[in-house]
Protein backbone atom coordinates (compact mmCIF):
# COMPACT_ATOMS: atom_id res chain seq x y z
CA UNK A 1 0.00 0.00 0.00
CA UNK A 2 1.44 3.35 -0.96
CA UNK A 3 1.78 6.18 1.49
CA UNK A 4 -0.96 8.05 -0.35
CA UNK A 5 -3.35 5.10 -0.08
CA UNK A 6 -2.59 4.71 3.61
CA UNK A 7 -3.38 8.38 4.06
CA UNK A 8 -6.76 7.94 2.36
CA UNK A 9 -7.64 5.00 4.57
CA UNK A 10 -6.55 6.86 7.65
CA UNK A 11 -8.57 9.86 6.53
CA UNK A 12 -11.78 7.81 6.34
CA UNK A 13 -10.97 6.23 9.69
CA UNK A 14 -10.53 9.64 11.29
CA UNK A 15 -13.73 10.88 9.72
CA UNK A 16 -15.63 7.82 10.98
CA UNK A 17 -14.30 8.44 14.48
CA UNK A 18 -15.38 12.08 14.36
CA UNK A 19 -18.84 11.09 13.17
CA UNK A 20 -19.15 8.52 15.96
CA UNK A 21 -17.97 11.08 18.48
CA UNK A 22 -20.63 13.47 17.25
CA UNK A 23 -23.26 10.73 17.55
CA UNK A 24 -22.38 10.48 21.23
CA UNK A 25 -22.58 14.24 21.65
CA UNK A 26 -26.01 14.38 20.04
CA UNK A 27 -28.94 14.19 22.44
CA UNK A 28 -31.42 11.33 22.24
CA UNK A 29 -34.18 13.68 21.20
CA UNK A 30 -32.12 15.20 18.40
CA UNK A 31 -31.18 11.77 17.06
CA UNK A 32 -34.78 10.68 16.96
CA UNK A 33 -35.74 13.92 15.24
CA UNK A 34 -32.99 13.34 12.67
CA UNK A 35 -34.39 9.88 11.90
CA UNK A 36 -37.88 11.34 11.58
CA UNK A 37 -36.54 13.95 9.21
CA UNK A 38 -34.65 11.39 7.11
CA UNK A 39 -37.14 8.53 7.05
CA UNK A 40 -40.47 9.96 8.19
CA UNK A 41 -40.63 7.41 11.01
CA UNK A 42 -38.24 5.89 13.49
CA UNK A 43 -40.12 2.62 13.86
CA UNK A 44 -38.79 0.79 10.78
CA UNK A 45 -35.17 1.46 11.72
CA UNK A 46 -35.74 0.54 15.35
CA UNK A 47 -37.70 -2.60 14.53
CA UNK A 48 -35.08 -3.79 12.05
CA UNK A 49 -32.27 -3.41 14.54
CA UNK A 50 -34.26 -5.02 17.34
CA UNK A 51 -34.95 -8.00 15.09
CA UNK A 52 -31.23 -8.19 14.31
CA UNK A 53 -30.39 -8.09 18.01
CA UNK A 54 -32.83 -10.88 18.85
CA UNK A 55 -31.63 -12.97 15.93
CA UNK A 56 -27.98 -12.56 16.89
CA UNK A 57 -28.55 -13.42 20.55
CA UNK A 58 -30.83 -16.33 19.71
CA UNK A 59 -28.33 -17.70 17.21
CA UNK A 60 -25.79 -17.66 20.00
CA UNK A 61 -28.10 -19.77 22.15
CA UNK A 62 -28.63 -22.21 19.32
CA UNK A 63 -24.88 -22.46 18.82
CA UNK A 64 -24.40 -23.17 22.54
CA UNK A 65 -27.09 -25.83 22.46
CA UNK A 66 -25.48 -27.46 19.42
CA UNK A 67 -22.09 -27.32 21.14
CA UNK A 68 -23.52 -28.91 24.29
CA UNK A 69 -25.15 -31.67 22.26
CA UNK A 70 -21.93 -32.29 20.37
CA UNK A 71 -20.00 -32.43 23.66
CA UNK A 72 -22.45 -34.98 25.08
CA UNK A 73 -22.21 -37.03 21.91
CA UNK A 74 -18.41 -36.95 22.09
CA UNK A 75 -18.46 -37.98 25.73
CA UNK A 76 -20.81 -40.86 25.03
CA UNK A 77 -18.68 -42.04 22.15
CA UNK A 78 -15.52 -41.96 24.20
CA UNK A 79 -17.05 -43.82 27.14
CA UNK A 80 -16.65 -47.55 27.14
CA UNK A 81 -19.45 -49.41 28.85
CA UNK A 82 -18.43 -50.83 32.22
CA UNK A 83 -17.47 -54.45 32.11
CA UNK A 84 -18.54 -56.71 34.92
CA UNK A 85 -17.89 -60.28 35.56
CA UNK A 86 -21.42 -61.76 35.76
CA UNK A 87 -20.34 -64.55 38.11
CA UNK A 88 -18.65 -62.07 40.43
CA UNK A 89 -21.68 -59.76 40.40
CA UNK A 90 -23.99 -62.58 41.31
CA UNK A 91 -21.69 -63.68 44.10
CA UNK A 92 -21.48 -60.19 45.57
CA UNK A 93 -25.19 -59.49 45.37
CA UNK A 94 -25.99 -62.85 46.88
CA UNK A 95 -23.56 -62.09 49.65
CA UNK A 96 -25.27 -58.80 50.38
CA UNK A 97 -28.74 -60.26 50.27
CA UNK A 98 -27.84 -63.12 52.52
CA UNK A 99 -26.14 -60.88 55.01
CA UNK A 100 -26.94 -61.84 58.56
CA UNK A 101 -27.09 -58.29 59.77
CA UNK A 102 -30.73 -57.37 60.21
CA UNK A 103 -30.40 -53.97 58.61
CA UNK A 104 -29.15 -55.13 55.24
CA UNK A 105 -31.07 -58.33 54.81
CA UNK A 106 -34.04 -58.18 52.50
CA UNK A 107 -36.97 -59.58 54.41
CA UNK A 108 -39.49 -61.87 52.83
CA UNK A 109 -42.25 -59.89 54.54
CA UNK A 110 -41.17 -56.74 52.74
CA UNK A 111 -41.73 -58.54 49.47
CA UNK A 112 -45.13 -59.99 50.29
CA UNK A 113 -43.72 -63.40 50.91
CA UNK A 114 -41.82 -63.56 47.62
CA UNK A 115 -38.07 -63.76 47.46
CA UNK A 116 -36.15 -61.77 44.87
CA UNK A 117 -35.79 -63.75 41.71
CA UNK A 118 -32.46 -63.85 39.96
CA UNK A 119 -33.99 -61.90 37.11
CA UNK A 120 -34.99 -59.14 39.52
CA UNK A 121 -31.53 -59.00 41.00
CA UNK A 122 -29.89 -58.78 37.59
CA UNK A 123 -32.42 -56.16 36.52
CA UNK A 124 -31.81 -54.01 39.60
CA UNK A 125 -28.10 -54.35 39.15
CA UNK A 126 -28.36 -53.47 35.50
CA UNK A 127 -30.33 -50.33 36.38
CA UNK A 128 -27.64 -49.29 38.80
CA UNK A 129 -24.94 -49.94 36.21
CA UNK A 130 -26.84 -47.79 33.75
CA UNK A 131 -27.14 -44.99 36.29
CA UNK A 132 -23.47 -45.30 36.97
CA UNK A 133 -22.81 -44.80 33.28
CA UNK A 134 -24.01 -41.21 33.62
CA UNK A 135 -21.13 -40.71 35.97
CA UNK A 136 -20.00 -37.76 37.91
CA UNK A 137 -23.03 -35.54 38.25
CA UNK A 138 -25.56 -38.22 39.19
CA UNK A 139 -26.25 -38.11 42.91
CA UNK A 140 -26.79 -41.17 44.97
CA UNK A 141 -30.33 -42.36 44.52
CA UNK A 142 -32.75 -41.77 47.33
CA UNK A 143 -34.44 -45.06 48.12
CA UNK A 144 -36.44 -43.57 50.96
CA UNK A 145 -37.19 -45.78 53.91
CA UNK A 146 -38.25 -48.87 52.03
CA UNK A 147 -36.91 -52.20 53.28
CA UNK A 148 -34.91 -52.50 50.08
CA UNK A 149 -33.11 -49.24 50.80
CA UNK A 150 -30.11 -50.63 52.61
CA UNK A 151 -29.65 -53.39 50.07
CA UNK A 152 -29.64 -51.04 47.15
CA UNK A 153 -27.36 -48.66 49.00
CA UNK A 154 -24.92 -51.47 49.54
CA UNK A 155 -25.01 -52.40 45.90
CA UNK A 156 -24.58 -48.75 44.97
CA UNK A 157 -21.52 -48.41 47.18
CA UNK A 158 -20.12 -51.60 45.79
CA UNK A 159 -20.49 -50.26 42.28
CA UNK A 160 -18.83 -47.00 43.18
CA UNK A 161 -15.95 -48.76 44.84
CA UNK A 162 -15.38 -50.72 41.67
CA UNK A 163 -15.26 -47.62 39.46
Amino acid at each position, binding site marked *: *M*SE*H*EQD*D*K*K*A*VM*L*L*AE*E*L*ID*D*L*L*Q*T*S*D*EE*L*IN*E*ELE*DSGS*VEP*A*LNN*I*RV*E*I*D*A*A*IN*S*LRKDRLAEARAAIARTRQSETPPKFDAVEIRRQVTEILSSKTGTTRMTIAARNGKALSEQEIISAFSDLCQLRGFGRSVPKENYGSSPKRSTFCKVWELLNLKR
Partner: protein
Amino acid sequence: MATPSVPAEAALSATEVADGIRCLSDADILRFKRASQYLSYGGARPPADLRNEAIRRAADGTRKCPRNLPIVVFLFGVMRSIASADRKAIRRAPTLTVVSKGGSAASTLLDGVDPRRSPEDLIIQEEQVGELKRRVLDLFKNDLVAHTLAEGLVDGIEGRELKELVGLSDREFATKRRFVRRRIDKAFPNGWKR
Protein backbone atom coordinates in the same frame (compact mmCIF):
# COMPACT_ATOMS: atom_id res chain seq x y z
CA MET B 1 -9.76 1.39 19.87
CA ALA B 2 -9.36 -2.02 21.42
CA THR B 3 -11.21 -2.77 24.62
CA PRO B 4 -8.57 -3.21 27.30
CA SER B 5 -8.62 -6.37 29.35
CA VAL B 6 -11.02 -5.98 32.25
CA PRO B 7 -10.88 -7.81 35.59
CA ALA B 8 -13.77 -10.27 35.84
CA GLU B 9 -15.43 -8.48 38.76
CA ALA B 10 -15.33 -5.15 36.93
CA ALA B 11 -16.95 -6.57 33.82
CA LEU B 12 -20.55 -7.36 33.04
CA SER B 13 -21.42 -11.03 32.66
CA ALA B 14 -22.38 -12.29 29.22
CA THR B 15 -26.02 -12.43 30.32
CA GLU B 16 -25.92 -8.86 31.59
CA VAL B 17 -24.43 -7.73 28.29
CA ALA B 18 -27.10 -9.58 26.31
CA ASP B 19 -29.82 -8.03 28.49
CA GLY B 20 -28.20 -4.61 28.12
CA ILE B 21 -28.16 -4.92 24.33
CA ARG B 22 -31.81 -5.96 24.30
CA CYS B 23 -32.68 -2.95 26.46
CA LEU B 24 -30.83 -0.35 24.38
CA SER B 25 -32.80 2.87 24.17
CA ASP B 26 -34.28 3.97 20.85
CA ALA B 27 -31.60 6.64 20.48
CA ASP B 28 -28.81 4.15 21.23
CA ILE B 29 -30.21 1.80 18.62
CA LEU B 30 -30.00 4.61 16.07
CA ARG B 31 -26.44 5.35 17.22
CA PHE B 32 -25.53 1.68 16.89
CA LYS B 33 -26.91 1.55 13.36
CA ARG B 34 -25.16 4.69 12.18
CA ALA B 35 -21.85 3.79 13.79
CA SER B 36 -21.91 0.45 11.97
CA GLN B 37 -22.39 2.35 8.71
CA TYR B 38 -19.51 4.72 9.44
CA LEU B 39 -17.13 1.86 10.30
CA SER B 40 -17.89 -0.31 7.30
CA TYR B 41 -15.34 0.82 4.71
CA GLY B 42 -12.13 -0.32 3.04
CA GLY B 43 -12.76 -4.07 3.08
CA ALA B 44 -14.68 -4.29 6.36
CA ARG B 45 -17.85 -6.38 6.30
CA PRO B 46 -21.21 -4.68 5.56
CA PRO B 47 -22.90 -2.73 8.40
CA ALA B 48 -25.51 -5.38 9.23
CA ASP B 49 -22.85 -8.10 9.44
CA LEU B 50 -20.72 -5.83 11.58
CA ARG B 51 -23.61 -5.33 13.99
CA ASN B 52 -24.45 -9.02 14.05
CA GLU B 53 -20.88 -10.06 14.81
CA ALA B 54 -20.47 -7.35 17.43
CA ILE B 55 -23.63 -8.46 19.24
CA ARG B 56 -22.51 -12.08 19.17
CA ARG B 57 -19.02 -11.34 20.47
CA ALA B 58 -20.39 -9.04 23.14
CA ALA B 59 -23.16 -11.39 24.26
CA ASP B 60 -21.09 -14.56 24.30
CA GLY B 61 -18.52 -13.03 26.61
CA THR B 62 -15.71 -13.04 24.04
CA ARG B 63 -15.34 -9.33 24.73
CA LYS B 64 -15.61 -8.03 28.26
CA CYS B 65 -17.70 -4.95 28.88
CA PRO B 66 -16.55 -2.81 31.82
CA ARG B 67 -19.42 -2.10 34.19
CA ASN B 68 -18.91 1.64 33.94
CA LEU B 69 -19.07 1.72 30.14
CA PRO B 70 -22.38 2.33 28.36
CA ILE B 71 -23.30 -0.75 26.33
CA VAL B 72 -23.59 1.21 23.10
CA VAL B 73 -20.06 2.60 23.50
CA PHE B 74 -18.85 -0.92 24.19
CA LEU B 75 -20.54 -2.10 20.98
CA PHE B 76 -18.83 0.69 19.05
CA GLY B 77 -15.49 -0.62 20.31
CA VAL B 78 -16.31 -4.19 19.31
CA MET B 79 -17.43 -3.10 15.83
CA ARG B 80 -14.31 -0.97 15.45
CA SER B 81 -12.14 -3.94 16.29
CA ILE B 82 -13.97 -6.31 13.92
CA ALA B 83 -13.86 -3.81 11.07
CA SER B 84 -10.17 -3.17 11.62
CA ALA B 85 -9.43 -6.91 11.63
CA ASP B 86 -11.44 -7.29 8.39
CA ARG B 87 -9.43 -4.56 6.71
CA LYS B 88 -6.17 -6.21 7.69
CA ALA B 89 -7.30 -9.75 6.93
CA ILE B 90 -8.51 -8.99 3.45
CA ARG B 91 -4.95 -8.35 2.32
CA ARG B 92 -3.41 -11.52 3.68
CA ALA B 93 -5.93 -14.27 4.35
CA PRO B 94 -5.92 -17.17 1.92
CA THR B 95 -8.94 -19.45 2.10
CA LEU B 96 -8.74 -23.23 2.24
CA THR B 97 -9.77 -25.16 -0.82
CA VAL B 98 -10.91 -28.76 -0.68
CA VAL B 99 -8.94 -30.96 -3.03
CA SER B 100 -10.44 -34.34 -3.80
CA LYS B 101 -8.38 -37.33 -2.67
CA GLY B 102 -9.65 -39.61 -5.36
CA GLY B 103 -10.18 -39.18 -9.08
CA SER B 104 -7.70 -38.53 -11.79
CA ALA B 105 -4.40 -36.87 -11.24
CA ALA B 106 -5.67 -33.86 -13.16
CA SER B 107 -8.59 -33.40 -10.79
CA THR B 108 -6.28 -33.22 -7.79
CA LEU B 109 -4.22 -30.42 -9.25
CA LEU B 110 -4.93 -27.12 -7.65
CA ASP B 111 -5.86 -24.96 -10.58
CA GLY B 112 -8.35 -22.72 -8.81
CA VAL B 113 -8.08 -19.01 -8.59
CA ASP B 114 -5.84 -17.67 -5.83
CA PRO B 115 -8.41 -16.60 -3.25
CA ARG B 116 -6.27 -13.75 -2.01
CA ARG B 117 -6.95 -10.32 -3.38
CA SER B 118 -4.88 -9.66 -6.43
CA PRO B 119 -2.77 -6.49 -6.57
CA GLU B 120 -5.36 -5.14 -9.01
CA ASP B 121 -8.20 -5.84 -6.55
CA LEU B 122 -6.28 -4.12 -3.81
CA ILE B 123 -5.63 -1.10 -5.99
CA ILE B 124 -9.36 -0.91 -6.80
CA GLN B 125 -10.19 -1.11 -3.11
CA GLU B 126 -7.68 1.60 -2.23
CA GLU B 127 -9.05 3.75 -5.02
CA GLN B 128 -12.51 3.29 -3.58
CA VAL B 129 -11.31 4.63 -0.24
CA GLY B 130 -9.67 7.59 -1.98
CA GLU B 131 -12.82 8.13 -4.01
CA LEU B 132 -14.89 8.03 -0.83
CA LYS B 133 -12.78 10.77 0.70
CA ARG B 134 -13.23 12.90 -2.42
CA ARG B 135 -16.99 12.30 -2.46
CA VAL B 136 -17.27 13.37 1.15
CA LEU B 137 -15.30 16.56 0.60
CA ASP B 138 -17.33 17.31 -2.53
CA LEU B 139 -20.46 17.48 -0.35
CA PHE B 140 -19.13 20.71 1.09
CA LYS B 141 -17.63 22.39 -1.95
CA ASN B 142 -20.14 25.24 -1.71
CA ASP B 143 -19.56 25.83 1.99
CA LEU B 144 -16.04 26.96 2.68
CA VAL B 145 -16.22 26.62 6.45
CA ALA B 146 -17.81 23.15 6.33
CA HIS B 147 -15.33 22.08 3.64
CA THR B 148 -12.40 23.24 5.71
CA LEU B 149 -13.85 21.52 8.74
CA ALA B 150 -14.44 18.25 6.86
CA GLU B 151 -10.95 18.43 5.42
CA GLY B 152 -9.57 19.01 8.90
CA LEU B 153 -11.53 16.07 10.24
CA VAL B 154 -10.21 13.68 7.61
CA ASP B 155 -6.71 15.02 8.07
CA GLY B 156 -6.89 14.26 11.78
CA ILE B 157 -6.38 17.83 12.95
CA GLU B 158 -7.03 18.08 16.67
CA GLY B 159 -10.23 19.79 17.81
CA ARG B 160 -8.70 22.96 19.25
CA GLU B 161 -6.39 23.46 16.29
CA LEU B 162 -9.27 22.84 13.93
CA LYS B 163 -11.46 25.36 15.71
CA GLU B 164 -8.74 27.96 15.32
CA LEU B 165 -8.27 26.99 11.69
CA VAL B 166 -11.92 27.56 10.83
CA GLY B 167 -12.25 30.45 13.28
CA LEU B 168 -15.25 29.12 15.22
CA SER B 169 -16.23 29.20 18.87
CA ASP B 170 -16.84 25.91 20.71
CA ARG B 171 -20.57 26.19 20.15
CA GLU B 172 -20.25 27.16 16.49
CA PHE B 173 -17.76 24.37 15.95
CA ALA B 174 -20.12 21.78 17.47
CA THR B 175 -22.96 23.06 15.32
CA LYS B 176 -20.87 22.93 12.18
CA ARG B 177 -19.61 19.45 12.96
CA ARG B 178 -23.23 18.35 13.40
CA PHE B 179 -24.02 19.93 10.03
CA VAL B 180 -21.18 17.96 8.44
CA ARG B 181 -22.42 14.70 9.96
CA ARG B 182 -25.99 15.33 8.90
CA ARG B 183 -25.01 16.08 5.33
CA ILE B 184 -22.94 12.90 5.22
CA ASP B 185 -25.85 10.90 6.71
CA LYS B 186 -28.17 12.18 4.02
CA ALA B 187 -25.68 11.55 1.21
CA PHE B 188 -24.87 8.04 2.45
CA PRO B 189 -28.10 6.75 4.06
CA ASN B 190 -27.04 3.12 3.83
CA GLY B 191 -23.40 3.56 4.66
CA TRP B 192 -20.43 4.37 2.46
CA LYS B 193 -21.24 1.85 -0.23
CA ARG B 194 -23.83 3.10 -2.64
